[in-house]
């Protein structure tokens, strides 16, 4: 009974007309990514957590540093020093929410279902990434607006501002792909801790206080960790005096992490199934 015949009689049921699908193309791939971006945006806008992380938390961090710590740390000029640090921290933990979304989709079997569809391979991941870029640029605008209201006076020209935007996009792309790759391997609970990476590691950089005010055993890490050149690049652009070497170091770090995370994420997406 367990032998499998190569041909079997058909059932006495009416034949059906199978649907004809359009061939996959760059047009259908763009449609897939767009659909996924709409999905992610809904997830963010419809959760209180998501909205708090995207808009309320960045403003609070800004207020804490400028209003509460500002007086003790550096007086009036401190706001101009600290805004780039706050900005990078906010872009970081704003991107980290992608890890939670991806982990949820893995656990719920949603990613498995997407993988059985004739769609552009990693469109589900690109949905997270594109939605994250849009969301984080919006929260960056809010952060900068609040900073300006608090007395932040940048000296950036138009070109510098364009540089800020371009560099912010690169940073968010990198942070989000890193979060997405982590979300594919972590549980939902563990994925919620990915934002600690972006909440605490920036403190050990030049973002909030100059490195030479830290204990000497921290100098090595603080000067050479990636957040330092990234924050310094924003600081340079916002003060209207970007430094080429720092900017190149930052871009090298970000592109390096981006390539590795994007490749690892895409590979993990293909390999892993729901758990």
């Amino acid at each position, binding site marked *: *009974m*367990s*032998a*499998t*015949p*190569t*041909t*079997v*009689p*058909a*059932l006495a*049921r*009416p*034949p*059906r007309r*199978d*649907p004809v*699908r*359009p061939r*996959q193309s760059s047009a*259908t791939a763009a*449609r*897939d990514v767009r*659909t996924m971006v*709409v*999905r992610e945006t*809904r*997830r963010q806008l*419809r*959760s209180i957590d998501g909205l708090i992380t995207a808009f309320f938390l960045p403003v609070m961090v800004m207020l804490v540093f400028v209003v509460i710590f500002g007086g003790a740390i550096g007086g009036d000029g401190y706001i101009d020093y600290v805004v780039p640090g706050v900005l990078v921290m906010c872009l970081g933990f704003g991107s980290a929410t992608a890890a939670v979304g991806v982990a949820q989709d893995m656990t*719920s*079997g*949603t990613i*498995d*279902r*997407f*993988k*059985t*569809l*004739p*769609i552009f391979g990693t469109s589900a991941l690109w949905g997270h990434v594109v939605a994250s870029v849009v969301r984080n640029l919006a929260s960056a605008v809010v952060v900068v607006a609040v900073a300006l209201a608090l007395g932040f006076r940048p000296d950036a020209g138009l070109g510098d501002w364009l540089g800020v935007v371009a560099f912010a996009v690169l940073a968010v792309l990198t942070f989000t792909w890193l979060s997405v790759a982590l979300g594919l391997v972590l549980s939902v609970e563990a994925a919620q801790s990915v934002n600690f990476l972006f909440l605490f590691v920036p403190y050990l950089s030049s973002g909030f206080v100059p490195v030479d005010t830290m204990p000497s055993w921290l100098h090595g890490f603080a000067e050479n960790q990636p957040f330092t050149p990234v924050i310094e690049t924003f600081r340079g652009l916002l003060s209207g005096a970007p430094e080429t070497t720092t900017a190149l170091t930052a871009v090298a770090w970000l592109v390096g992490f981006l390539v590795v995370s994007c490749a690892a994420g895409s590979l993990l997406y293909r390999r892993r*199934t*729901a758990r």
Partner: protein
Amino acid sequence: MTEPMIAVQGLEKSYGDHAVLRGVDLSVRRGEIFALLGPNGAGKTTTVNILTTLVRPDGGTARVAGADVVHDAARVRETIALTGQYASVDGFQTGRENLVMMGELAHLPRRAVRTRAAALLERFDLADAADRRVGSYSGGMRRRLDLAISLVADPTVLVLDEPTTGLDPVSRSQLWEVVRGLAADGTTVLLTTQYLEEADRLADTIAVLHDGRVAARGTAAELKSLVAGDHVRVAFEDPASLATARGLAPQLGLATTETDDKDLSLTAASADPVRTIREVLAAADAHGLAVSGVSVVRPTLDDVFLALTRKESAR
């Protein structure tokens, strides 16, 4: 004679040292409802994952609608739809938004997406809840939406991985109705289940998966005939009658009898139940025994399942 819609031969898959599939053969006809029956860990989900291109097999071949699941995965994905174990619908979207999203991902013509979504919501009795977020749906509603989502692209082959696990009896029979309707329209359905009743009531063909192999395959009736035939059960009104009947059994040629002192019954295997009943009743009359009921007991899939898994484990 036509090529099977799903053709699986010698499928093997191991995770580390653990062999999950050890040479599975399956053949599913177009328009058939085919049940993969087995306990947890028998390899049901792994088989489903291979057929839906999620997992690559270590050995053997699997073809869906003539397309190889490894070398022609893109074509397989155009043919199948998967409803997994966990009702993977988005709680943060409404029922309609979930359906429209899948219509978009199926690359339906833009105008057709909304009409199709509305028609499916109607068909699955979700029209009233269409614009509520799925997070507020009941378990049964989520499953129905999950199934509706799988049907957006009108799949040729529908794969249902434990579709009714955790559903109440009403939702379960509703879902069975839908699956029967789909098969009647020519959709091929492969479902996995650990419920024997589900396989019995729903499937045209059942394959019992045990320990990574197909232990038996056939219709529910064919499988039941695998375990030794029918039994006759006679119940008595008092313990004295039961005791006397027990003594008489060997004379009537009833070798393997089982007695139940609680409901005062005697059960015996019989190749010809009608004749056995006549003889038992005649003997009861002759000895003045008080009979309260007579019935024929047919083997259930449970018996088949237990017999098969016991045999396999003993190997």
